C-alpha cells in the first residue's frame, strides 16, 4: 500500500477545498441578496399623533363610524347615552375591521363573530384582548382623536 499522504492527495485535497469554498461563497453571494430582496423594507409609520375623526353633528347617539388614523382604521362610538369614545378598529383576533352594531349596542367583528363592549373590552367570541382605546377631545364641532 502506498502512503495516502503523498503530495498528490494533499494537493487534491487542497484543490477540493478551494473549489468547495468558492462554490459555497458563490451560493451565499447568490442567495443572500435574493432572500433579503424577498423581505419587504420597513416603511416608516406616519406617526400622526392626532386626527379629526368626525364632526360631532354627524354622529347620532347609538352609532359608530370608521375613521382613518394614519394608515390604520379607527372606530368612533357614540354610546346611547351620548358619550363619545374611540378605539382601534383592528380586531385583536385576526386583523379584521370591526363595526358598531346598533341593535345589540356593542362593537362586532363579522369575521369570527367577536364582540366587544362599549369600553372596547372583548366580551364574547375569539378576540383575546380589548381594542386599544384612544383619547377623544371635542373642540367646537370637531372630534379629535389622539393616541395615549
Amino acid at each position, binding site marked *: 500500500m502506498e502512503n495516502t499522504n503523498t503530495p498528490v492527495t494533499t494537493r487534491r485535497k487542497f484543490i477540493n477545498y478551494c473549489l468547495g469554498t468558492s462554490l459555497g461563497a458563490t451560493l451565499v453571494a447568490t442567495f443572500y441578496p435574493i432572500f433579503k430582496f424577498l423581505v419587504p423594507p420597513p416603511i416608516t409609520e406616519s406617526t400622526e399623533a392626532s386626527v379629526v375623526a368626525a364632526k360631532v353633528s354627524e354622529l347620532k347617539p347609538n352609532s359608530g363610524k370608521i*375613521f382613518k388614523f394614519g394608515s390604520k*382604521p379607527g372606530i368612533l362610538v357614540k354610546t346611547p347615552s351620548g358619550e363619545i369614545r374611540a378605539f382601534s378598529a383592528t380586531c385583536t*383576533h*385576526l386583523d379584521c375591521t*370591526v363595526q358598531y352594531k346598533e341593535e345589540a349596542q356593542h362593537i362586532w367583528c*363579522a*369575521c369570527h363573530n367577536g364582540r366587544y363592549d362599549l369600553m372596547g373590552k372583548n366580551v364574547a367570541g*375569539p378576540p*383575546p384582548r380589548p381594542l386599544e382605546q384612544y383619547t377623544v377631545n371635542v373642540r367646537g364641532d370637531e372630534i379629535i382623536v389622539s393616541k395615549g
Partner: protein
Amino acid sequence: MNLSAITTWVNDRAGLEPLRALAHKKTVPLHRHSVWYYFGGMTLFLFAIQVGTGILLLLYYRPSAENAFESVQFIMTEVRFGWLVRSIHSWSANLMIATMFVHMFSAYLMKAYRPPRELTWVSGTLLLFIVLGFGFSGYLLPWNKLAFFATKVGTDIAGVVPGIGTFLLRFLRGGDEVTGATLTRFYGFHVAVLPALVTAILFVHLYFVQQRGMSVPPSLAGKPLQTMKFVPNFFLRDLMGWLLALGALAALAALFPWELGEKADAFASAPAGIKPEWFFVFMFQTLKYLPAKIGAVDGEVLGILAFGGGGLFWLLVPFLDRQSAQGKSSRWFTLIGILILLYIVGMTIVGYAE
C-alpha cells in the same frame, strides 16, 4: 407524404419509440374500486383548463389596488366572452380542488401510499399545498371586500406561527398590512411562482405513477385481477370524463357566472357573512369555535399548530403507517382517514349552515 411517412420521419429524429413502448405497457387493474382511478386524470384536465383560461385572463388583468377590481369588471362586461373565461377559471379552480380531494382521499383509503409508492404520496401532498396556495392567492386578485378580509385573516394566521410568524406575515403581505403590495405579490405567486412549482412537482408525481404502475387496495392485493390497457381503452374513458367535465363547466359558467362583489376598502368594516373559499371553511369554522384562551395560550395559536401538525401528519403518512407497509390491514389509519374526512365535511356544512 402520408401520415405514416411523417411519423417515421419525426421518429427517426426524435426517437419516440421508448415513449410509445411505455404508453403501451401501461395497464389499469380492474376491480370494484377502479372508478377512483379516474380522479387524478380529471384533476390534471381541470388544471390544464386553469392554465389556458389563466393565460387568457392575463391579457386584460391589471395587478394593482387601483386597477385590479376595475380590470376584472372590464373582463366581465366589455371583453367578448370575458365573463365566460373568468367564470370557467373560477369554476374549474373549485372543481379541480374538489376532484383533487376525491383523488387524495381515495388514494389514502386504498392505502396507495404503501411501499414502493411513498414518494408518489409525498409529491401528491406537496401538490395539495401548492394548489391550496393557488386558491388562496387567486382569491385576492379581483380585489373585492370578501377577498380582502379573507386575506387579512389568512395572512394574520401565518403571523401567529411561533418563531417565524412575523417574517411570514411580512413576506406574504409585502409589508405590515394587506395593501396593493400584497396584491402584487399574490399576483406574482399566482401566475409565476406556483405554476413553475406545480409543473415541476406534477412531473415528478406522474413519473412516479408511471414507474410503479397503479396500486391495488390491500384487500385485493395478490389476487388475480383483470387489467385494461391504458392506451387506448382507459384513456378513451378518461376523455369521456373530460368531455363531461367540460360540459359541466360550460353549464355552470353560463348559469352561474362568477360574482365580483364590491371593491375592497381598507377603511370599511368587515361585512357580515364573510367567508374564505369553501375549501378553507373547515379551518375557518374551527377558529370560530376556539375560545380566546386555552390555558395560558391564545386559542388560535393552538388551532394553527394543530392544523400545521395535521398537514405534517398527512405528508408523512406512508412512513407512519407501519402496518400497511408490511402488507397487514391497518384499521387505525383507515379510521383516522375517515374521521378527518368527516371532520372536514361536517365543519364545512356547519360553516355554511350558520
